[in-house]
């Protein structure tokens, strides 16, 4: 069946964000979590001007028809049929009857989704040990952010500046197959590449019993298209700094921060803190572990921060606990900003 050119043009003119919404993607401020990779901070951006989407991590992108193809794993025709049905765009078939066809059966596992990465604790532990703090990372953590060295050391934060050196070392130590299986090293058109954009900081996530459960990176370079944070984990989402619960007694004061940087600032201020990965991700199975502490939070002064606080409070009320909001001083956007300003003021 041929789809008329004018219909293809019409389908590609359908508002990209509405198409994404119909596909079940949660679009916020022209961004959404990528469906092609294990995404934790929205990597897809929508351009309503160009009516296209793009994931800055996987590099996939295109117009509305391409979005349906990528999301559902359908061919071009199937995607057009689905769009036509969803947005009431009809066209006559060869026999001049009004076209109608059932939407193609959804393929639950697309080509990309089949690539489930194995979080190999041994490989990642080796990576964390190898990724010592180098100069750009020290500059960022200690001179720009004024974080305390003992906090950074205790949390075993490291850095990777040269990705090629790291790939060589990883392949030499574990072999190419293992590295590819972990997802830490990937194969692209020009050979092997490192999953995390470099130069970057690496933040290891540990379970309460000290097992490594995930690694998050924080990009330190100048490429504006690179995602600021990337995440590799054995489970979907976890709380950062869970081992701190081992030093707390029931009823002790504990802060929940939105993101690692705020958490580091709180810890550097001598407070006990854990972090949710982002305002939109609440690792509920870990959060339940916090219900017996006196919980506080400095919500970021933006809509997402306020929403995260409301959701956290909702969660804890339903679990017979409470999280209380602390108010940041005027003119600061989050606790990290407050911490930096405080340290600049005190010289």
């Amino acid at each position: 069946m041929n789809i008329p050119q004018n219909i293809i043009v019409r389908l590609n003119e359908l508002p990209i964000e509405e198409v994404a919404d119909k596909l079940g993607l949660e679009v916020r401020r022209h961004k959404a979590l990528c469906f092609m990779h294990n995404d934790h901070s929205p990597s897809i951006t929508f351009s309503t001007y160009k009516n296209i989407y793009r994931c800055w991590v996987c590099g996939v992108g295109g117009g509305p028809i391409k979005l349906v193809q990528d999301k559902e794993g359908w061919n071009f025709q199937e995607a057009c049929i689905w769009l036509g049905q969803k947005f009431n765009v009809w066209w006559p078939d060869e026999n001049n009857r009004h076209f109608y066809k059932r939407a193609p059966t959804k393929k639950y596992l697309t080509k990309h989704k089949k690539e489930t990465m194995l979080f190999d604790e041994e490989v990642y532990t080796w990576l964390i040990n190898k990724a010592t703090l180098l100069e750009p990372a020290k500059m960022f953590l200690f001179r720009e952010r004024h974080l305390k060295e003992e906090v950074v050391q205790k949390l075993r934060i490291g850095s990777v500046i040269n990705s090629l050196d790291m790939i060589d070392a990883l392949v030499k130590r574990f072999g190419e197959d293992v590295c590819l299986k972990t997802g830490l090293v990937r194969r692209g058109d020009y050979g092997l590449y490192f999953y995390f954009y470099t130069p970057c900081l690496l933040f290891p996530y540990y379970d309460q019993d000290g097992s490594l459960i995930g690694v998050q990176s924080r990009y330190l370079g100048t490429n504006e298209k690179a995602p600021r944070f990337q995440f590799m984990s054995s489970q979907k989402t976890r709380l950062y700094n869970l081992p701190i619960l081992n030093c707390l007694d029931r009823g002790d004061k504990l802060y929940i921060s939105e993101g690692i940087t705020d958490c580091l600032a709180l810890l550097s201020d001598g407070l006990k803190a854990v972090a949710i990965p982002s305002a939109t991700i609440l690792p509920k199975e870990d959060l339940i572990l916090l219900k017996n502490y006196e919980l506080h939070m400095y919500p970021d002064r933006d809509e997402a921060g306020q929403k995260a606080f409301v959701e956290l409070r909702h969660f804890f009320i339903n679990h017979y606990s409470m999280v209380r909001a602390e108010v940041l001083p005027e003119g600061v956007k989050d606790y990290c900003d407050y911490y930096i300003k405080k340290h600049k003021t005190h010289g």
Partner: protein
Amino acid sequence: MDENNKKTDLEKVNYSFDMLLNDIVAVPTEDKGKPESDDKNLREYQPKLIVVQMLLDLAKSCKTENYKDNVKLRNAIKVKVDGDEQLSGYMFFVSQNPQFDYSWNYMRKCKTNYMEFLINSIRFFNNVLVDINMLIEKPRPERNIHVVFHDILEVELTNKEPFVKTRLLWDNFYRLATVKSDYNIIVKAKDTLLKATSRKEPSDIENLMDSFFEMETTNQRKIQKNETV
């Protein structure tokens, strides 16, 4: 601040369900030191708060015109409650108890009454929110006054944004079970009742406040007259 400026500032504020819950959860900490916060009150605070949060969430989700349309609201609640499989499971589990005489029927009747309770609560909280937003727009009286809704929610009129502070009267918490879309409103200063009305429509609280301000103005004139004499 002159009257006009105050009015302009006040108009910017829109009291929401989130703000109402913020106010409600803020109070128990203030009450902690008081002798009436006995063990029972403290023990029951969290489960009561879960109920309040659930009702406010529900009221918020029906905030649009839905809550005024009886059929739509009833259908929306029926879909929610009947669609809740865990609630059905819980009903079965509770009914399998000698104290309930293993009576499944009793629990089914309770479910119908429960839906009625939810519908009434949604209407109550939505109407109260409309009333509170109306109170925000009113000028502030000289003395500190409180407006109490059906002995459940007490709203203090303040001069600081958001210009009202609400607290839930936890001792009267169980009145929530019998609340209806029509309810009593009283205006009081400390423990003195100044005005009261039965609220059936939004204009009732407006009339109540107007008559209260009229009374206040008359009283002040009388005082000034006496002072002059």
